[in-house]
């Protein structure tokens, strides 16, 4: 699967991809921050500082998206990334391809193919 980027606006596409990756990192940071907070090992001051940093990061990301008109592009890229992850997970959960389902795995190669040019 490929990530589709609008070729007429490469800058938007690339920047959108960068922001999408930064958002994913931001989510990972939030998870870690919550774990630290819930561990009880951080002082109130440290929790406050951690929270403010993440809040500032979030606001900065949102500001860039708004300024550059990237909100829709980032959403689309993230949806496509989600699809890729879903596909990978699906293949891990159910590693059976259509050839097995159709019982055609014994057909000699090249006899049947689908529109992607693959044996089916």
């Amino acid at each position, binding site marked *: 699967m490929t990530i589709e980027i609008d070729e007429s606006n490469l800058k938007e596409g690339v920047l959108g991809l960068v922001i999408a990756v930064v958002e994913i990192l931001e989510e990972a940071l*939030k998870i870690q*921050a*919550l774990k630290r*907070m*819930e561990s009880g090992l951080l002082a*109130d001051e440290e*929790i*406050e*500082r*951690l*929270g*403010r*940093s*993440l*809040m500032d990061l*979030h606001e900065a990301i949102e500001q860039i998206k708004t300024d550059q008109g990237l909100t829709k592009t980032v959403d689309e890229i993230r949806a496509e990334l989600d699809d890729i992850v*879903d596909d990978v997970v*699906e293949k891990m959960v159910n590693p059976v391809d*259509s050839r097995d*389902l*159709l*019982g*055609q795995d*014994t*057909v*000699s190669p*090249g*006899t*049947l*193919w*689908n*529109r992607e*040019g693959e044996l*089916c």
Partner: protein
Amino acid sequence: MLNRTAMVEQRGHTDTPGEAAGMNDAPGSTSADIRDVQAAPGKDGLYLYALVENGREIPRGITGVDGEQVFGIPCRTMSAIVHACPLTPYASEDKEVVTGWVVSHEQVLEHLIGAGINTIPFTFDTIIKPENGLDARRVLTGWLSKEYETFVQKFGKVRGKKEYGVQVSVSRRKIGDAIAATSDQIQQLDEEAKVSGPGKMYLIRQKREKAINAATDAEIAGIITEITGKIQGYCSDLHMGKLKKWQVPERDMILNCSCLVPDENYPKLGAVLEEIEQEGNVSIRFTGPWAAYSFV
């Protein structure tokens, strides 16, 4: 194996049920028969729609992808439903053209299913080509003969049954709002946020969102278990498909299920789904009958 039946069907005429579907195969077929069937220049391939079990009349004059005349090629107790095509897959950059082809493919299957014919469907753009000096027809019949027992088993699995789609959606936001309104944990977090500085408040809000999402996921898992429990008794098999985007805003698909349903159970399944929807928590899309793609 190859006889007059196939030639007649290619011209859009069907004979008696058995004859049309190859029940009356006469021995002594000649290679001339084969050449006659595939005489169209540049159309040395066979586009395969489905295998059908003999015994019922194939609807007359079906046209398939690109308006091509569909015909049957008999092999023992089954027939392959095909049209003669070039040796290149159907491909276009124009989405409308591709959609038209796929719809035509599905319409052929609908004709077969609508006529009560036991059908094993093939996906769009399955093309058989000549190989090792054999024309496509001989390649096809050779393959069907070789895999005959496999296909007999598959026909047995779907005989008297049809595939239906059951898609269920909920509003995650509404479920989340209901959880937030009643959960002690969420109310405690709200109280804690009120007396916190902006940084801690931000983290508490993240925690709140995470807790609501987890509770929403748990509730949705319960809904899925309940629904599948209610419908599986009416299905001989279930296949869980990938979740897709629901067309209505603010609704999320939580179940995308293909059901292989015995014909006599179809009304009961419909009634159960209607009852579930009337309870008000979910929206249900019940589609079909489809060719049993998911179960062969």
